[in-house]
């Protein structure tokens, strides 16, 4: 019995017990459903073993949406707790756990897989490739992310959630002040999914550099592909820093080392520095692909090619360099000299310049265009003013002298939500609506979509703009309650109402999916938006080999040229197509990783050793395996092309 005591929750509450029951029932329902409908084989053959970039993209998408709701529930609970002064809905410990998991889930397990979903699905199609460079590695990336996410999410029912904030600063995150295994979960779950991100980085860079269709030079790549390339270069640069920081944090907690402790020479500020050397570029890893999606959408629905292509590319490259030179602006108040504060102030403000260039380029793309106000376009147009406000408050925060007033207040919370929600979340929803017909063969309902957009925008403004005011008045972030005398009550109530409206908007997205599955017309062809780039030149649903014939590229918008200017997109003849085989290895390997992570969290060493051996056994098996892939014959290709719409030969 003693062995099992470690799995108990340190601060149980009825909500958590209820969650346990719900989780158990859901798992039973899924297992029973799969068995009853005899779908185990289908699940294994078509999804768990797949190496197809499109299916992996869809799995990222589903995971990201699930995590969006998980993180969203955290957010609602926080706003509910703060809605009135001296509220007793949550105690301090629960509040700590909830803001910690909200941050981690939203950044690492929602935003990251969301952009990976689009990178995986869209980039190979945009560059005219048949798959990514390393399809099986791609599956491993996904399953590592998935297992990391699952490991993190079971923390609140087994052993307790992390409670030291998503930044997990030491010494707070050390054993002395964070006794439960929660922070172990943080260190190890992020480590596992971070490995997956690094592999995606390597995969995407190789794919984009080496597998572009004939004629597509670097300066003819679609903007989303450029954004993906730059974002993945940042991933490869900074994720190893996180790997090392997390490893050292784990060692401090489990092996009693002294990297970040207050004794024996340890240095807590080293963690803060390493964390933000990864953490700040991380937000650009999220925002650059979002910019890429906006570029595609604004160009399509303005019926014009993108204004200032070269300056768009240059500004992304400049942002990526600057993103690695600004990390110390996260702790201006934590004891550095005036000289280094000034340096980081200036580099931070400098980022506003290339970002401003991009904003103007989008505006000039719309200038004199024939604008169609579709749902994706609404998100993109809404993004520009809202994101600009977030950017301007960022420049305010960048001034190190003034930051002594803003630091760790709700002003900061308002700022980064003001960039991430209109920047990343709007882009993801715009991209979801825009690419939905390519992924599933029907459109999402426009009317419900427009309702969603307006509710989300209004809810967002109501939820976050009051925080600027309470922040300037001195409401600290991460405080679980405040007294009535502070006068923060009314504004926080408005925030709560705003959060409620946002929740309705997200529920509407689910309803929209349901409604569109039932009522949307299916005869929309493969190019319903009248778009410009190669991903729309494929059939819908996209065959597993993407393009029967490699497309020939002449400009940044080859598909548009093919439709309007008589450019011949597919000049070659059909040939047999080489494709990789499916494999169960990635799923099995990453399941072992899950066991490894779980036993590490609870320091069950025999199991750690056993699963480590299992991981290396998988790698060795892979090394000795002979797998040359398979060929799809010309007849099969012809048959598939006819079935999915023909005309692409």
């Amino acid at each position: 019995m003693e062995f099992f005591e470690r799995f108990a929750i340190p601060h149980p509450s009825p909500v958590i017990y209820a969650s346990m029951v719900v989780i158990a029932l859901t798992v039973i329902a899924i297992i029973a459903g799969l068995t009853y409908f005899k779908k185990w084989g289908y699940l294994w053959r078509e999804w768990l073993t797949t190496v197809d970039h499109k299916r992996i993209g869809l799995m990222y998408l589903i995971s990201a949406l699930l995590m969006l709701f998980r993180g969203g529930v955290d957010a609602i609970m926080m706003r509910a707790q703060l809605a009135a002064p001296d509220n007793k809905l949550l105690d301090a410990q629960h509040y700590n756990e909830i803001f910690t998991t909200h941050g981690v889930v939203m950044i690492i397990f929602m935003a990251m897989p969301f952009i990976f979903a689009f990178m995986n699905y869209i980039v190979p199609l945009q560059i005219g490739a048949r798959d990514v460079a390393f399809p099986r590695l791609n599956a491993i990336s996904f399953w590592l992310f998935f297992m990391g996410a699952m490991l993190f999410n079971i923390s609140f029912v087994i052993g307790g959630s992390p409670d030291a904030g998503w930044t997990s600063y030491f010494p707070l995150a050390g054993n002395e002040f964070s006794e439960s295994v929660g922070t172990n979960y943080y260190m190890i779950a992020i480590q596992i999914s971070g490995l997956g991100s690094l592999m995606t980085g390597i995969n995407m860079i190789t794919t984009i550099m080496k597998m572009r269709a004939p004629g597509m030079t670097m300066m003819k790549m679609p903007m989303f592909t450029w954004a993906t390339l730059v974002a993945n270069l940042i991933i490869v640069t900074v994720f190893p820093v996180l790997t090392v920081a997390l490893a050292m944090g784990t060692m401090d907690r489990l092996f009693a080392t002294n990297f970040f402790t207050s004794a024996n020479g340890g240095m807590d500020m080293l963690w803060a520095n390493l964390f933000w050397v990864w953490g700040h570029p991380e937000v650009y890893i999220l925002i650059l692909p979002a910019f890429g999606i906006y570029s595609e959408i604004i160009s399509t629905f303005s019926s014009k090619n993108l204004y200032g292509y070269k300056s768009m590319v240059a500004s992304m490259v400049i942002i990526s360099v600057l993103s690695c030179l600004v990390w110390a602006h996260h702790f201006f108040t934590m004891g550095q000299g005036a000289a280094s504060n000034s340096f980081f102030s200036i580099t931070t403000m400098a980022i506003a310049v290339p970002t401003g260039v991009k904003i103007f380029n989008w505006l000039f793309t719309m200038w004199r265009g024939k604008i169609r106000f579709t749902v994706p376009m609404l998100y993109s147009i809404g993004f520009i003013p809202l994101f600009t406000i977030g950017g301007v408050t960022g420049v305010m925060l960048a001034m190190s002298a003034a930051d002594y007033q803003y630091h760790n207040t709700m002003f900061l919370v308002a700022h980064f939500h003001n960039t991430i929600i209109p920047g990343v979340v709007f882009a993801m929803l715009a991209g979801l609506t825009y690419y939905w017909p390519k992924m599933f063969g029907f459109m999402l309902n426009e009317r419900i979509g427009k309702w969603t957009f307006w509710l989300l925008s209004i809810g967002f403004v109501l939820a976050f703009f009051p925080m600027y005011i309470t922040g300037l008045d001195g409401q600290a972030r991460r405080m679980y309650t405040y007294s009535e005398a502070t006068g923060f009550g009314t504004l926080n109530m408005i925030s709560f109402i705003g959060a409620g409206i946002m929740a309705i908007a997200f529920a509407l997205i689910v309803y929209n999916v349901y409604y569109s599955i039932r009522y949307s017309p299916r005869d929309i062809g493969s190019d319903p938006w009248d778009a410009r780039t190669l991903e729309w030149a494929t059939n819908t649903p996209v065959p597993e080999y993407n393009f029967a014939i490699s497309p020939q590229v002449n400009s940044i918008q080859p598909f548009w040229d093919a439709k309007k200017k008589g450019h011949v997109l597919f000049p070659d003849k059909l040939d047999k197509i080489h494709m990789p085989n499916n494999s169960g290895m990635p799923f099995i390997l990453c399941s072992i990783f899950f066991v490894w992570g779980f036993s590490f969290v609870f320091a069950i060493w025999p199991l750690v050793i056993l699963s480590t051996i299992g991981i290396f056994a998988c790698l060795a098996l892979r090394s000795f395996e002979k797998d040359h892939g398979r060929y799809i014959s010309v007849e099969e290709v012809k048959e598939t092309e006819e079935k999915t719409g023909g005309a692409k030969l």
Partner: protein
Amino acid sequence: MKIDHSQPLEYSTGQNNLNIFGFWIFLGAEIMLFATLFTTFFTLEHRTGNGPTGAEIFEITPVLIETILLLTSSFVIGLGIHAMRLGNKKAMITFFSITLLLGLGFLGFEIFEFVHYVHIGAGLQTSAFTASLLTTLGTHGAHVTFGLFWGLSIILQVKKRGLTPETANKSFIFSLYWHFLDVVWIFIFSFIYLKGMM
């Protein structure tokens, strides 16, 4: 699979080219990994708490032997790749085996060195300095250990399947990895040991 005979065997197919390119990107990530470890070490180098300093525990002899072993192994694997390009399977396997033996020797000395440190009171938990020292050295050592198993499995595959585009590709990538570990060691030798002894 299309084989381009104008290229060396390891570059002869499309997938081979992708593999080598991707591995270079991976090495870029590895550079960042070790750069972070070095940064940590330089930050914590003089924060020795109640434990010993670098000058008190470093000894030149075993470190010099380790250096010679690893540098030689890097040279030998270069000979191995040269033999592979000439199509001489037997010579290649011999050179690769010598490489791994030298690597094993290196590892033996490093384990001996670690035991010695723990013995004289410079263990992982002693101070921030010892933690960062042993983590940096240990990460490099773990890479060498992994390399030994990896190299062994490649030797077995070359032995069994001969020099094909696939095995040549694997061998070449492994040699890149091995040279990289050598480069890291040169930095460790210069900036951790020699600088620490001054």
